[in-house]
């Protein structure tokens, strides 16, 4: 009399999909033949293809497209009800790049995005100081960057059982793009800290800690030197900590934090940082657990979530060589699936990655192996069903 478990799951999947999708039909890159699409629940959101989830996809520069392709392969193999809306978006190839508004509108509509790394040149052709990454973040107000640094099985590193979450404010601070030469030879760069944004990121960090069941939040700062700017950030964190009496709160100066991170990273749980320090600590911590190829990250606004690698390196030396490690990007995609309530699929991908790493037979070059990106992807696909 009741529906079978399977039918229910399928139905659930569709239902979950439907809340994310209320835009126009997009490019469907991950196709399904016998998938849930056949059941057809188009009355709910008539504009979406059968209640599937739509997600913006930005391959990015460098090895980005190769890694994104790996994600698409896995999604196809696992028959995951996600459709990608792909945009070529690049700062180093401005003529080919999709306009910023299109990308922003797509992400705002789909509310989720998976993004490769965008290369940023060291100088500006146009005299404009904002990078494309910054423009995208500002346009969508993606203020919180979360990098979950976690030791993976069978990945050789100096420290074991590292498990910390680094949360970074990424719309102000040193990245204000306000620089000028007041007198020839004298350049001033403005670092902006505001109470509103500091409070917001502090609250985000504490809320994230609560959600993930963490115990401690560490604020990273340099308020002993920048007493006003970083002082404001630190005070906002201290104020916010009072609302979370069951979380431990501590503060640490960024230089000490860097030293502690490389000598005893296990002491850290959740960390909250202003923009530049966050960038540095992210990369430092990523290096501890195996490098840019294995650490996933995400950026959040109130409405959208953009999933991208934790340490943003384009790895241009490896372009076309089929040697980049897709682990980070696959973890990003798993996090995306968890975010849109497709937990079974998310677990499936994570388990598959763990299994491949634990077996240790297929390893890319950065982890000391000889396998290619494609080998690794195929190994993950093989482990999906087991």
């Amino acid at each position: 009399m009741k529906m079978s478990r399977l039918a229910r799951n399928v139905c659930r999947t569709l239902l979950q999909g439907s809340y994310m999708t209320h835009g126009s039909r997009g490019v469907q890159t991950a196709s399904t033949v016998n998938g849930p699409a056949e059941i057809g629940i188009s009355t709910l959101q008539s504009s979406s293809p059968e209640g599937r989830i739509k997600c913006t996809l930005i391959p990015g520069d460098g090895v980005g497209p190769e890694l994104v392709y790996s994600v698409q392969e896995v999604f196809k193999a696992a028959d995951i009800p996600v459709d990608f809306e792909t945009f070529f978006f690049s700062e180093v190839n401005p003529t080919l790049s999709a306009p910023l508004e299109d990308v922003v509108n797509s992400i705002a509509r789909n509310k989720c995005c998976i993004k490769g790394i965008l290369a940023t040149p060291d100088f500006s052709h146009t005299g404009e100081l904002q990078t494309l990454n910054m423009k995208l973040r500002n346009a969508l107000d993606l203020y919180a960057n979360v990098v979950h640094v976690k030791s993976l099985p069978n990945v050789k590193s100096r420290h074991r059982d590292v498990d910390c979450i680094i949360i970074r404010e990424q719309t102000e601070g040193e990245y204000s793009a306000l620089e000028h030469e007041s007198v020839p030879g004298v350049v001033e760069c403005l670092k902006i800290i505001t109470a509103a944004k500091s409070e917001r990121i502090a609250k985000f960090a504490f809320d994230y800690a609560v959600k993930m069941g963490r115990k401690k939040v560490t604020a990273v700062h340099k308020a002993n030197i920048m007493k006003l700017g970083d002082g404001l950030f630190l005070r906002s964190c201290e104020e916010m900590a009072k609302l979370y009496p069951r979380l431990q709160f501590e503060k640490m100066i960024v230089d000490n934090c860097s030293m502690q991170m490389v000598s005893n990273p296990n002491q850290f749980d959740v960390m909250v940082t202003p923009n530049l320090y966050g960038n540095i600590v992210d990369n430092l911590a990523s290096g501890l657990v195996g490098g840019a190829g294995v650490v996933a990250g995400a950026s959040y606004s109130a409405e959208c979530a953009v999933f991208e690698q934790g340490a943003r390196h384009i790895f241009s030396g490896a372009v076309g060589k089929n040697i980049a490690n897709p682990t980070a990007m696959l973890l990003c995609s798993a996090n995306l699936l968890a975010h849109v309530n497709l937990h079974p699929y998310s677990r499936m991908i994570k388990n598959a990655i763990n299994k491949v790493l634990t077996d240790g037979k297929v390893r890319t070059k950065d982890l000391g192996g000889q396998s290619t990106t494609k080998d690794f992807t195929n190994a993950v696909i093989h482990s999906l069903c087991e």
Partner: protein
Amino acid sequence: MALRLLRKLNVRPELRGVVNLSSAAAPAQLSDFDVQHKTPVVRKVHLVPKAHYGGRHAVTMLPGGGIGPECMGYVRDIFKYIGAPVDFEIVDIDPNADNDDDLKYAITTIKRNGVCLKGNIETKSEAAYVTSRNVALRNELDMYAYVLHCKSFPGVATRHKDIDIHIIRQNTEGEYAMLEHESVKGVIESMKVVTASNSERVARFAFEFAKKNGRKKVTTVHKANIMKLSDGLFLETSRRVAKDYPELEHNDLIIDNCCMQLVSRPQQFDVMLMTNLYGSIVSNVVCGILGGAGIHSGRNYGDHYAVFEPGTRNTGTAIAGKNVANPIAMINASIDMLEQLGHHFHADLIKAAVDKTINEDHIMTPDLGGQASSTQVVEAIIDNIDLYMKNKVSFH
């Protein structure tokens, strides 16, 4: 207020400092009497950003006592099943504790999340300094308006049909001011406090609510013939506010007459506005007419926070753990919550499934005359959610 007065009086600065000092130091040596009588009820709120990230909301969940925890379990099952973008932060409050630590923490979480779903919290301690936790929660968050939507379910057999009443109740003062003392041995005085500002706020809320929801009439319920000053003020205020809403009909009714009218001809009421204690009584009367404590959900609103709970605020300790409690009230509260957060799609879907389960399938718990257990009702609702999805049945 005190500061403004001081400024007006042009007090010398050193004196001003003394005044500030004494008021700041006061909380340390408050006696029970002081706690009851001198703690200001309305507090200034420093707003923090709401917990809303990547399209998901964090919501405080207070399971409370009695049937609360099991009903919350059902709500979480349904939310998990349909993938509602809500993350619950669960805070358990120990009913036997002789201090307010858990409660304070719960209030803090509501302040930072903005929204809460709650069961009824028990207060077993009878010490004077341990206030009723439900009342303390409302006062601390300054949730001055309580809204109960009483609408007949066609599938529930009741004496009266087609009732659709919104009860709006002042939620923070009146008889619930908790100011009681024994002035002379054997003589207890209990103060009922009605203020112009709170009466005005709740009256404004009621009329705005009626206007926004396309209602026709607002009825103020009072006992101003006996309590000429306190209820008189409440009535006067609502009459004055009514003048700003000429499109809405406004009348008033004395509480005793109101109760009689409710049980004899409840269809005459539309939106009802009343003080705290009358609201408690009237909402229980109306819920009783419509099938009991297990169906309707109530909403507490302040300027900044919203708390959703089952409508009649009963704990249901006697039936806890027996799998007979009616889960509908808590599910309806969760629907209200989803609507508040703007997740209309999920709210409409659960609502449609609940309506179908009760009105068409007649799967109900014993309190509504059915045979089903709590879990069977929840199962049926989940099956109906499936059904709406599968057969492309429009549920709007």
